[in-house]
C-alpha cells in the first residue's frame, strides 16, 4: 500500500452539484440492470435452460399429440400450431415467476443492505431493474421459441400479429414479475419462495388452454382454465398465430361467456395493475 496524496481521500470535498431526480433514477436503475445482465453473461445457464426447455416442450408435446383425433381443435388447426402459443406464454410466465429469486438471494446474503445504505433516488429502482431484466430475457426466449415454431412449420404471426404477441407477453410478464417480487419480500427465505414457484408452475400450465382447448376439458377444469391468467395471454397469441388481428374478435369461449382479444388484454392489464397495487405497500414497508 502506498501513501496517498492528501487529495485522494479528501473528505472536505463539496457535495457534488445536484442533478435532476430523473437522471439519477435512470442512472441507478441502469446500473442495477447492468449487474443482472453481467450475471447472466457469466452464468448463461439460466438463459440456455430457459430457451432449451420450451423447445423440448414444443418438440415432445407436439409429437405426443401429433395424432390427436380430427376435430379436437377448432378450425382443424394442427396441434403444433395450437401448442406454440401455449409454450411461448408458459416460458415467459416461468421466467417472470422466477424474477424474485435473485432479489431473495440479495436479501439473504445482505447485498440488498448495500443497496439500501446508498442514497437511491427511489428504491423502486431495485424493483424496476428486475422488471427490465426479466422483460428483456423473456422477450429473447419468446422470439427463440417463435423462430423454432416457425422452423417446425407451425407458422409465424406476421405484422400486427407480432405486435399483439409481444404486447400480450409484456402485460403477463409485468403482472407475474410483480407477484414474484412481492413474494420475494413477503416470504422468509428462498426455500419458501422456491416451494411456491414449484407448486404454482405446472398446475397453472395444465389448468390453462396451453395444451388443450376448453372444449376438451371436464367442466370443472374448463372453469379453472377460463379463470387462469395464462389463458388470457394464450388465446390472443393463438389468434394472432391463426392470422386473426382484430382485437374485437372472440378468442376465448369460456363457460361464462365469450371474450375478445381486447377483453383478454384488459384482464391482464387489470391483473398487472392489481398486483402492483397489492405489493406496493409491502415494498414500501420493506424498502422504507
Amino acid at each position, binding site marked *: *500500500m502506498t501513501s496517498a496524496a492528501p487529495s485522494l481521500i479528501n*473528505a472536505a470535498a463539496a457535495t457534488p452539484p445536484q442533478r435532476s431526480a430523473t437522471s439519477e433514477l435512470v442512472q441507478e436503475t441502469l446500473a442495477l440492470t447492468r449487474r443482472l445482465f453481467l450475471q447472466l453473461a457469466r452464468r448463461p445457464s439460466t438463459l440456455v435452460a430457459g430457451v432449451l426447455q420450451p423447445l423440448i416442450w414444443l418438440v415432445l408435446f407436439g409429437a405426443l399429440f401429433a395424432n390427436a383425433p380430427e376435430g379436437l381443435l377448432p378450425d382443424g388447426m394442427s396441434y403444433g400450431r395450437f401448442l406454440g402459443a401455449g409454450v411461448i406464454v408458459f416460458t415467459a410466465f416461468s421466467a417472470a415467476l422466477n424474477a424474485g429469486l435473485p432479489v431473495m438471494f440479495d436479501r439473504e446474503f445482505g447485498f440488498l443492505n448495500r443497496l439500501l445504505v446508498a442514497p437511491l433516488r427511489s428504491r423502486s429502482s431495485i424493483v424496476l431493474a428486475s422488471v427490465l431484466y426479466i422483460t428483456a430475457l423473456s422477450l429473447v426466449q419468446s422470439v427463440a421459441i417463435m423462430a423454432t415454431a416457425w422452423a417446425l412449420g407451425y407458422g409465424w404471426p406476421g405484422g400486427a400479429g407480432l405486435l399483439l404477441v409481444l404486447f400480450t407477453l409484456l402485460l403477463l410478464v409485468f403482472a407475474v414479475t410483480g407477484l414474484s417480487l412481492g413474494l420475494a419480500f413477503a416470504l422468509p427465505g428462498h426455500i419458501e419462495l422456491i416451494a411456491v414457484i414449484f407448486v404454482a408452475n405446472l398446475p397453472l400450465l395444465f389448468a390453462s388452454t396451453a395444451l388443450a382447448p376448453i372444449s376438451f376439458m371436464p367442466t370443472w377444469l374448463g372453469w379453472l382454465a377460463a379463470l387462469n391468467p395464462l389463458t388470457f395471454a394464450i388465446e390472443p397469441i393463438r389468434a394472432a398465430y391463426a392470422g386473426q388481428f382484430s382485437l374485437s374478435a372472440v378468442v376465448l369461449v369460456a363457460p361464462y361467456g365469450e371474450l375478445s382479444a381486447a377483453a383478454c388484454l384488459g384482464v391482464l392489464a387489470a391483473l398487472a395493475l392489481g398486483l402492483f397495487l397489492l405489493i406496493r405497500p409491502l415494498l414500501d414497508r420493506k424498502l422504507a
Partner: protein
Amino acid sequence: MPEGVIELQNVSKRYGKGDRAVVALDGLNLSVPAGSLFGLLGPNGAGKTTSLRILATLLAPCSGSVRVAGVDALQDPRGVRERLGYVAQEVALDKILSGRELLQLQGDLYHLKRADRDQRIAELIELLGMGDWIDRRSGTYSGGMRRRLDLASGLLHRPQVLVLDEPTVGLDIESRAAIWQVLRQLRDQGTTVLLSSHYLEEVDALADQLAIIEGGRVIAAGQPSQLKAALGGDRVTLRVREFSDEPEALQVQELLQRCPGVRQVVVNRAQGYSLNLVVEHDGVVEQLRRQLAEAQLPVFALAQSRPSLDDVYLQATGRTLMDAELAVAGSRDPKAERKQSMR
C-alpha cells in the same frame, strides 16, 4: 458544548415483541466530535452493530434522536446516506462481478458522474493496493481483499463520516495494518471515523476518542489516556508461588489489604490463585515485598503496569472484556440475528 458530527440521543431499540423482545439499545447517548477517530468498544452483543446500523439508516430506532453531519436520520435518511460511508461487518459481495464492477455499481448508486466515478475508483485502487486483483471476480477474494474492497466502496462518494463495523475482525496482520493506516490517514484529512471493535488493543492503538458500550448503554466515554489516567494507580499482579492454593491466596489477600496504599485486592482463581491489586505509587510495591518477606512468603512473580483499557473496562463494568465475551457467547442466537439484518 458543540454538537458532534454524530449525535445519538437517548436511542432505544428492541427486536421482537412482548415477552420475547430483546433490548439491543437502552437509552444510548453518543457524541462523536468532528474529525475524530472514534472507537466504540464493547463485548459482542453490547449493541455496537445495532448502533451502527441505525446510523447507516438500515434500522429505525424505537425512540430517541439520530443526527449525522447535522442531518436528522429519521427525517431525512437520504441526506444521511449521502454523507455517510458504511462498511458492514459481514461483507456481502456479488461473487460473479469483479471488484471494479462492484465499485462502478456503487458509484452509480451514489450518482457519481461517469468520469468522476472512474477516476475515483482508480484513486482508491491505488490507495488500497487493489490493482493486482481488482479485475478478478470477487468470489475469489481473501478476507483481507474483501475488506479492502468494502472500505473502498464506503469511501467512493467521499463521505464526511465513515462508519465501520469491526473492520479488522479475522484479518491477517498485514491487512489489518493497511486498514489502520488508511483510517488514520482519513482522520488526518478531516473525515470523522467511527469504528466498533471488541479488540481493546485496536481501540487503544487507533482511537483518539472512545466510548465503552455494554447492555445497550454507554458506560464510559472520553480519550483513552484520560480514561486510563482517571483510574489512577498501577496494576499489580502477584504470585507467591507458581501454583498457589486458595487458603494461601486468602492469607496473602488479607495481608495485602492491611497495607496502606493498596486497593482492590482480588484473588484470581482462573489464574492459579494469583492476586490482582492496585497500588497508589511505586513505593508501595517495595513496602509489599518487605511485608511478604517478614511473613515468610516467597514471591514467584510480581508484575506492575499502568492501567490499560481493559482496566477501564473492568472498572466500569465489574468484569473484564473477555469475561463479558464469554458470558454472551452462549446466549446469542445467530439465526435470529441474521433475520434481524434481513429486509
